[in-house]
């Protein structure tokens, strides 16, 4: 059974695009991802493979993207 999808908007001024891409690649085995973008944010629609771990998966995914952004020195837009 597949869990419902959740849309996460990563603000461009806060999150690095490369960090979000790398986070998607890292978590690709645990969920399916759809990536889009607009002027203000990187938009990721996450559909976990298992609904039981949806909250933890989305949270860890966000933490991973944030951690990579910080380790890369932040974004270049601010």
């Amino acid at each position: 059974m597949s869990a419902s999808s959740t849309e996460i908007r990563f603000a461009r001024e806060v999150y690095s695009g490369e960090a979000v891409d790398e986070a998607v690649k890292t978590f690709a085995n645990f969920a399916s991802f759809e990536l889009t973008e607009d002027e203000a944010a990187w938009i990721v629609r996450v559909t976990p493979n298992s609904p039981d771990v949806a909250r933890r998966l989305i949270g860890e995914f966000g933490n991973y993207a944030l951690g990579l952004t910080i380790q890369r020195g932040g974004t270049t837009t601010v």
Partner: protein
Amino acid sequence: MSDTTPESTELPAELVAVDTNAATVTLAVDATIYPLQALYGASYIFIDRCFVFIDRPEEGRFRVVLSPKDAKPEPEALRALVGEFANELLSCAWRHQITQDNRVAIETVTMQAIAGAMGEPSLDDLAAFDFSDEAFDDPLGIAQSWEEKHGKKTPSEPPPADAGDEPRAAAEQPAAEQPAAVSDGAGAAQ
């Protein structure tokens, strides 16, 4: 519908909102007081304890959503979490300000340390040094010698005529008279 109870925290209600059903706490951060680097620092400390999400809802303002990794945290735990995060955010902002204030000193010391680690220049380096490159400006002439600045007097140049004639004459007068007195004495003895 989630149950948002901002009055359950001691922080200002317009800045903090606690959602007990979703087990999240939302903190509004003024970007003019807390720079993004400070927000990064505080968030990085908390990502092992809770899920951290940062949003930029409008210009000059961040929104931080904290969610403990425990599925059902107590409301007191949420309140403590946002309080600790706010303290850490303030600490990171202050350290960021100190770093900005001391940036020039830090860079200067670092450059001197690197230059010192490179060792003394060799004779070949000194021979190849381009002295034509002006190292610094000297508008006040501090690096000039006294002769370059005021002009060196040549030894053959006669002294000025009106410079100290009377004292020199007064000093030479007894010396000129003394041999005569000696000669007079010698003559008298003879």
